[in-house]
């Protein structure tokens, strides 16, 4: 399929359909409205079902039902709506159901704003719902990358029987970029013989996360933790940009990472050897990338559209080897290169107090 100019939110819908998703349950919320709107037009064309639920709470539970029934299903929302879905997401993870959840983040907390932000990082990676579970979380930095990751997400969800989340932001959802839809490399996926399809010819299946006997629930938790260990072992993804001789490594993901690339170039023009480490998966967090960095690195600077959340994972990964600084903007404001350069220069000019 040739490249076409598409709005991020609509590209999300098309990518999901190309990946075989046939069910979408959602609810209106800016800035992701074009996803349900697009799906309401396209899904009927491919024999799928689009349904606008009465709330995000209902929507995520419809996803639970459809995933438990054995088909590819997704939902999309933005920050406040994703908060409403947290209980359902915990149930989906607990019942080991595959699905895709899109979060086009907007400024928070509370009703917040509708401009882009990254302030749902903790919610996405540290488990916004109850219990020891994790979402597999991608953080695309372009519409094309978002499309590629979505097309892979359904295989990953089925492979791990786990929900996958795409952490976008208002810009990724609203901007238009050229995209093409390429099939991802195939994973061999087990049949969904656990799904509730009617028990003709087999033992009955039960989709459930209730386990009142503590020993059984612990056994179940060990199984889930093994799944997350496997993800950490095999699924970490990142991009390194000009880090071979870097003394200052900036760490940023999504839209912010694009800005930081131009910051790196400008810093290098000023003689500061800067580089970018861009997480693509934020769960599993790309700790392995840090081990690849040269010994020339003296400091890190995490840059986020939040008050600083991913910075904590950076500190964990750096593990005290050198200082980790943070700069960012909140409220939906996108950090400008100049202000990042100012902070970076101070860091390298002298130790920041």
């Amino acid at each position, binding site marked *: 399929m040739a490249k076409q100019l598409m709005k991020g939110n609509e590209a999300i819908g098309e990518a999901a359909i190309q990946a075989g998703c046939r*069910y979408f*349950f959602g609810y209106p919320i800016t800035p992701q409205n074009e996803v349900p709107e697009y799906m309401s037009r396209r899904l009927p064309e491919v024999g799928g*079902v689009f*349904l606008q*639920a*009465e*709330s995000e*709470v*209902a*929507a995520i*539970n*419809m*996803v*639970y*039902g*459809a*995933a*438990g*029934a*054995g*088909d590819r*299903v997704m939902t999309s929302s933005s920050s406040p709506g994703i908060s409403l879905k947290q*209980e*359902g997401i915990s*149930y989906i993870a607990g*019942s080991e159901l595959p699905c895709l959840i899109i979060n086009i983040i907007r400024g928070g907390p509370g009703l917040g704003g509708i401009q882009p932000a990254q302030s749902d990082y903790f919610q996405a990676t540290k488990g916004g719902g109850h219990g020891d579970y994790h979402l597999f979380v991608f953080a695309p930095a372009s519409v094309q990358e978002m499309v590629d990751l979505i097309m892979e997400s359904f295989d990953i969800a089925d492979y791990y029987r786990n929900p996958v989340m795409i952490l976008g932001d208002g810009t990724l959802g609203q901007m238009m970029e050229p995209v093409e839809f390429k099939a991802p490399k195939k994973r061999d996926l087990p049949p969904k013989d656990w799904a*509730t*399809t*009617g*028990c*003709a*010819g087999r033992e*009955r*299946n*039960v*989709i*459930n*996360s*209730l386990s009142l006997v503590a020993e059984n629930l612990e056994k179940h938790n060990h199984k889930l933790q093994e799944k997350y260990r496997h993800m950490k072992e095999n699924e970490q993804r990142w991009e390194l940009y000009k880090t071979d001789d870097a003394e200052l490594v900036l760490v940023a993901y999504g839209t912010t990472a694009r800005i930081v690339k131009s910051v790196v170039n400008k810093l290098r023009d000023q003689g500061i050897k800067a580089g970018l480490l861009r997480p693509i998966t934020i769960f599993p967090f790309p700790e392995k990338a840090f081990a690849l960095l040269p010994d020339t690195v003296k400091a890190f600077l995490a840059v986020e559209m939040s008050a600083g959340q991913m910075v904590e994972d950076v500190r964990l990964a750096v593990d005290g080897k050198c200082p980790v600084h943070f700069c960012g903007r909140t409220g939906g404001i996108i950090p400008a290169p100049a202000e990042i350069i100012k902070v970076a220069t101070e860091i390298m000019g002298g130790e920041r107090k």
Partner: protein
Amino acid sequence: MKLVFERPSALTDKQTHYCPGCTHGIIHRLVAEAIDELGVREKAIGVASVGCSVLAYEYFNCDMQQAAHGRAPAVATGIKRVHPDKVVFTYQGDGDLASIGMAEIVHAAARGEKITVIFVNNTIYGMTGGQMAPTSLVGQKTTTSPYGRQPDHCGYPIRMSELLSTVQGAVSVARVSVHDVPNIIKAKKAIKKAFETQLSGAGFSIVEVLSTCPTNWGKTPLEALKWLEENMIPYYPLGEYRTPEEVK
């Protein structure tokens, strides 16, 4: 001599955890008998809610899903949209359906989801130890209305069948009871009819079944049946509130 009455095959042989005399057990059997008589056990997918019947997935001998509290109609919607040819039902209590799950049940009905809802109304939260429910009667003492439910403080009990009968998509709405054998027989007919409504594709069906809670009402099983008859039925009149024939 022939075996004329036994446990329906749509029930597993697991003994239920329900309290002695709790009529949940009767309602489970009626649902299973309807499924057996319609021959749809292998096509049935049930959704257990949260409350005393949270363990229903261990009792119904067909594919089951466990829903979060109040969300069974949404889970059932997801299932039915994926498998329109299957028989999808939910089994919910009054706390689950008429309190936290009110939006889900009203909108599932409004959408005319082709699912069957078995709504067990015992005017109380049983599993959690006897708290007031949206269906608790005026003056009814519970652990959270210790002086008896006072309308000026926390409103009147909700009549779900009447409420849902105003919703266009709800083509089959009936309220029945299981406090004596004649009513048990009528309840079974209504439950079977609700499943037939689904099978015919006419739309959303719900049966509200008045039920007892001896433990949390503080009564013996027999006293509970009497209390139901004398107190619940006057406020929750039995009958068909919407039938597919009217809709045609």
